[in-house]
């Protein structure tokens, strides 16, 4: 049994971990670098239309919606993809210019709309900072080096006041 444990420990030692990490990184790099993007023109159309709001629907994208307004936008996107002259973002801009209105499903990062990006980032920073502060306080308390709080002092004073041995 002890032999098995020793073998188990040896297997799990650092060379095993290094091998694991090397294989993982190698395969992630291979998979990431061979990324070929959309396989068909329709895939590209799907990706672009998922970023454009249906002008007359309730919050649906052109990709999801089946009404005539969305179909006409989709047809236009299909045409632009077939022409293969514009990048995806340029096609989105072209559609927004051509059809007017607020068709972007991703809010801009300027003006009031920037809040929709800033507030979550602030939330994450506050959450992580709060955790860091809490852990620091707990560590200091555990080490007994934390400053006594007013509540601590009040507790000591009350205990001293109740002490029958106190003259």
């Amino acid at each position: 049994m002890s032999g098995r444990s020793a073998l188990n420990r040896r297997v799990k030692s650092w060379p095993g971990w290094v091998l694991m990490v090397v294989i993982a990184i190698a395969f992630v790099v291979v998979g990431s670098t061979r990324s070929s993007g959309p396989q068909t023109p329709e895939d590209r159309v799907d990706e672009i239309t998922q970023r454009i709001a249906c002008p007359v629907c309730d919050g649906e994208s052109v990709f999801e919606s089946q009404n005539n307004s969305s179909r006409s936008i989709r047809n236009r996107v299909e045409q632009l993809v077939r022409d293969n002259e514009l990048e995806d973002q340029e096609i989105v801009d072209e559609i927004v210019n051509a059809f007017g209105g607020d068709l972007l499903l991703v809010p801009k990062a300027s003006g009031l709309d920037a809040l929709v990006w800033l507030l979550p980032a602030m939330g994450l920073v506050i959450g992580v900072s709060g955790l860091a502060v809490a852990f620091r306080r707990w560590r200091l308390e555990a080490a007994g080096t934390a400053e006594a709080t007013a509540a601590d002092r009040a507790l000591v004073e009350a205990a001293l006041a109740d002490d029958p041995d106190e003259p």
Partner: protein
Amino acid sequence: MIAASLNSAFGRAGLLLMLAASIVGGLSIVFGIWQNDRRLLRQAPRYAWLALAGSVLAAVMMQRALITRDFSLAYVQQVGSADTPVLYNFAAMWSALEGSILLWGLTLAGFTAAVAWRFRRRSNDELVAWALFVMFVVTAFFAMLSFGPADAFAAGAPNVFEGPGPNPLLQNHILVLFHPPILYLGYVGFTVPFAFAIAALITGRLGEGWLAETRRWALFSWSFLSIGILLGGWWSYEVLGWSGVWAWDPVENASLLPWLTGTAYIHSVLVQERRGMLRVWNLSLLISTFALTILGTFLTRSGVINSVHAFGDGPVGSWLLGAFVVIMIVSLGLIFWRGDRLRSPGSIDSPISREGAFLANNVLFTVFAFIVLLGTVFPLLVEALQDRRTVVGAPYFDRLTMPIGIVMLFLMAIAPVLPWRKASQELLSTRLFWPGWCGVGAIVFSVLVGADGWAPIIAFGLGGFAAGAALRQIVLATRRQGWRGFVGRANGGMVVHLGVILIAVALAASNSFTHSATLELRDGDVVEWGGHTFALESVTVDINAAESERALKANVLLDGEQVYRPAITTYLNQGITVGTPSVRTGLAKDVYLTLEPGAEPGGDVAVIRVFIKPMILWLWIGGLIMAVGTLLAAFPGQRQRKAVDPVSAPVGGSGPPDDDAVDESAAGTKDSTDGRPRVEVGARSTRTGEGSGEL
């Protein structure tokens, strides 16, 4: 006319009984406690049964009105039709605002009665009495909604003898019968732990007793909410014809919000049960979960936010908003009032510990919920401040939540192997070794079968890592305890994790590797695409017996094996046309067919769209595993050890504990008499090893 008067009169009588019983039940509790009259407290549960009887009567009368096509009622005029098939006529009750509030009330009255029954021998206990009081108050509120702003039994216009029936999308798939009621079981179920949380604040018994009482209620509600959300995704996939399961629609978001905070709660509550810490945080999560169900209902039932499946724009919105405000004020006021009893004396020793992982989990879930809430209400904010329309859609949510999802998968891998209090590097390297190789195996496998792009490959790798960690726990537990290694909260929780991991991997695969094409099929030709063959056999028209639906179908032979029939269905009464997909489901991938406009009946040409979507079936299998895991988690584990109080003080220099396989359900907790956990310096529950083998 007799039928009409019966349905309306008995329906209203039922609602009146529900309202009166809830009010009298609540008053009975308040006076019972005030006057210290135990008799009043003991009789309070009977009012819960009366309220349930009233709500059942109202629901039965609404069903009777729908079955008998009682067009004297405005609601039946709105959603009833002689042409609606029986099953969908049954589901018509929750296909519009008033009926859905009626279903909410019925579910709530059911939960109130269940609480009364479960705690029938403790009706004298003030904690139980106040919890029941809160349930009565909420039940009375929904009964009032059904009487006033969402009156399901209001008289309709005279001389109306036919209606349009439910929205066509709500009468063409069997899931319409299950998705809303199951979702409501989840939504409404969280009222129970919320009620006990408020009761604990009122009574000042803020130890861990109320958590133990509501543990299974919260788990039950969370499970139904999870299943309800997944069934909604399944319905969307099978019915809406855009091939997706989740669109970040406001109504979908409204269901996701309480799920996120509820999930954070069922994790962080373990820290309180074990260590007596995070009391305010856990109360806040529960209150948020309940308040978000009300806020979500307000957002989607008041007309303030448009969505494909939102409905209602009447005064019900102001009632729901008022309820949300009251819930927040009362809850925060109670927390402020009880602030002195909510302070926890303990501390968390290290971020690299089970507690640390739960806290990180909570930060992530809370930020996730904040993003969903912000994105959902942001158009309202912009409209209010700048009077312009803006849309926050799926790409925004995908962009912000994907990194959070990836970090959550990482935490799911790490947390199960972490011991409470502190972990050493040696312990981590030992316990994470095989899970790590599972992750590497998943990466290698995914790349070998053709995956590309860093994000899905990382997601698969982390999914494998997390699955390895969950399986490790299950293997160790079953080695030690046999089949009982599957039950109990820790082990059942790992089964739930496996379901969640499957869903995450399936979502990553289907979102990243879906391919689509538009194919023009001509009779007699065989078109090849995506490794499949498509041949048009015919274009036909089916009209149902009631002549209310006309379906134009392209009969497409797929791979020379079976005919699939994507259709464009026109609902003649409503004049609505809906694309109806036809799907071949497989373990590795689905082939999803929709028919484009332009085909002629009897013609020899049809244009179809084809989506090839990998791993969709695993979403539903993952949901099933989650449900099974929740059931296993609800069972008590094997080792029913002597209950201990939460350990709130640091362990002095004894090195890192090694108890990650301990079933938390066995680490039961009791309230101490003053509502505070007794501090046990250095005390720990039974220490267990890592099982009979090494993994």
